[in-house]
């Protein structure tokens, strides 16, 4: 159980994963429903985040962004609301649900 904290929790350099409709969570417009496509994170951090509730395949909506690159307020799977770091959101890949009304 005892293990040192990784110095780095991301995988790869920070980048927006924009391929067609797929984008990173921090670039998702407000109140646009999307599905979590992938977590580009260290396995340990990804495991914890999945346990908290941000799992591949679940729905996610950005409710608001704190100013000056502060955290995002997101709703996950309709019943959970999270404050998450914008730096983290950069590594969460989402695909907007097409046809859904914003």
């Amino acid at each position, binding site marked *: 159980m005892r293990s040192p904290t990784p110095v780095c929790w991301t995988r790869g350099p920070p980048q927006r994963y924009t391929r067609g409709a797929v984008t990173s969570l921090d670039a998702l417009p407000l109140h646009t429903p999307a599905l979590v496509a992938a977590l580009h994170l260290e396995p340990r951090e990804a*495991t914890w985040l999945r346990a908290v509730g941000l799992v591949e395949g679940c729905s996610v909506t950005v409710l608001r962004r704190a100013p000056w690159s502060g955290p995002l307020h997101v709703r996950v799977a309709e019943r959970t609301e999270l404050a998450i770091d914008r730096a983290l959101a950069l590594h969460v890949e989402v695909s907007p649900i097409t046809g859904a009304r914003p």
Partner: protein
Amino acid sequence: MTETAIVTLVGRPNAGKSSLFNAVTGAHAKVGNFPGVTVDVLEAQVPISESEAVRFVDLPGVYTVEGDTDPESDEGHARRFLEELTHHQTPAVIAQVLDATQLELGLRLTLELRRRGLPLLVLATQHDALIAQGFELDATGLSEALGVPVVATSAREATVRARVLEVTAEAARLKAVPPTDSIDVEALAKRVLQPRVDAKEAFARVRARTERLDAVLLHPLLGPVFFLAFMTALFAAVFFIAEPVTGLIDVLNQALGARIEGALGTGWVSSLLVDGVLGGAGTVLAFLPQIVILTVALELIDASGYLARGTFLVDRLLRFAGLGGRSFVPLLSAHACAVPAISSARIIRDPGQRLRTILVLPLMTCSARIPTYGLLITTFFAAKSVWFRGGLFVALYFAGLGFGLIASLVLGRTVKRTSQPLPLVLELPPYRVPQVAVVARVGWRAATRFVRDVGSVILIAAVVLWALLTVPGPSAGTPPPEATPRVVAMYGSLAASVGRALEPVTTPAGFDWRLNVGLIGSLGARELMVGTLGVIFGIEDTGDDPAPLADRLRDARRADGTTAYGMATALSLMVFFVLACQCISTLAAVRRETRSWRWPLFVFVYTYGAAWVLSVVVYQLASAAGL
């Protein structure tokens, strides 16, 4: 009494574990609408028959029991207990506390717990909240699907205790085997959550309430403004509401002192009672109302769900200062007392941020500083308007916060630097109306604890100090002209000699031997400052009528007959109290959490060093300005 089973409450943070624990065991574990209230393992025995009892254990919340975790975090503490549980002699039962309004997430943890091979049962709590959202849980269906007992309950219903005890007794007899089947939690959650007739509207109604509040409280402009206004109002309330009450208790103190002197004369017995007991402990007791107001307000922030929102609001600022959003929780609770706040730093996931938070927590304005601030303001700023005094009091709170941020900014560049601190992830729970009974009990317990402290530690310290001000020391000192024999004895006492020996260091800051004795007396606990001054100036007061401590301080003279203290001294002393970590319990807590002597020593040295330097600066500047 023999223990027949250990029932460990496991569940996601904020699921309602501590509420159930309290309901079943009658304990008073802290409860709050925030994920991460409990940071320690709590235990309580519940008798189930004449000779048998069950031990209930309340753990910090965990999101998962598999994979790695930081052993120093709150989750780490819970996980360690669970690892050790398998080696116990007594039959162990895991009771998963599952928030019924977040069924799917809770069920994922259930599957992990099922794999542990310990007897498992599920307490689906907050069923009342689920019903308010327009749903009902099919406990039988869920129990059949999982193969473990399931109870749908609520910590606020009357029968909860009996139902939990019944099902745990049953579960203790079960032998669990790790299951081989896997379950689709999403489908299962859909199946066992049964919508009531008005499900859609009810769910929308509950959500709309939280959304409406968030629209204001998390608004980029209104949110911070409301937060600052709320904190300012709170600190001001501590001053304005409590001032008259404090004055009243002070008057009662005087009257009682006069009665004692009337009955016993002015011998040493009467001096011990009036100067030692009343002057020392009684003066501190007058600050009871402030401490209750502060505790209740902080409890309301906890219970409503605003605490998590505060984290969202200040994350950016705290990250700039080298801390993180989660540091907000210990920083805020340190305004009551730093000791539990240091433990609650376990909820900070990033080790660097956690350490730096612990190191700056002693700078937050804890309630033990209130008596000194109150005394200094009423004594030396009596001529100023009440708004000035209230403003000064509030400014002292923000000074603590400001110095804390500066210190963390410096530490952030030096201590445990990481290029990429762990990111903030925090659940924002729905708002709840605080329960009056719970809030009242928290306030009541703060009051009784304070009275008990005054009656024990502070009383003993005041009496010891009175004695040290009586036994002769190596140097005689120069008492004021026309001093009574008792005052001459005090000037030649052991305590006075020590205080005078420190004068070369403290004179630049404006502190004479009497204040030095106060500072030494408050080395271990800062609330002793006022008590100590109460004793010293109680002895020195030779008038017929015992005067309030404020008058005595204002009238205090130096050996040459000039006024001893003024506003410059008061400001200097305030700055000293803002910065110095005059609290043994805090240092012990830092030692416990960091598992080293290095950090408590560091805290002691840096806070006292900064306190001395800034006190000197303030005193010199204020004196030059003619204050």
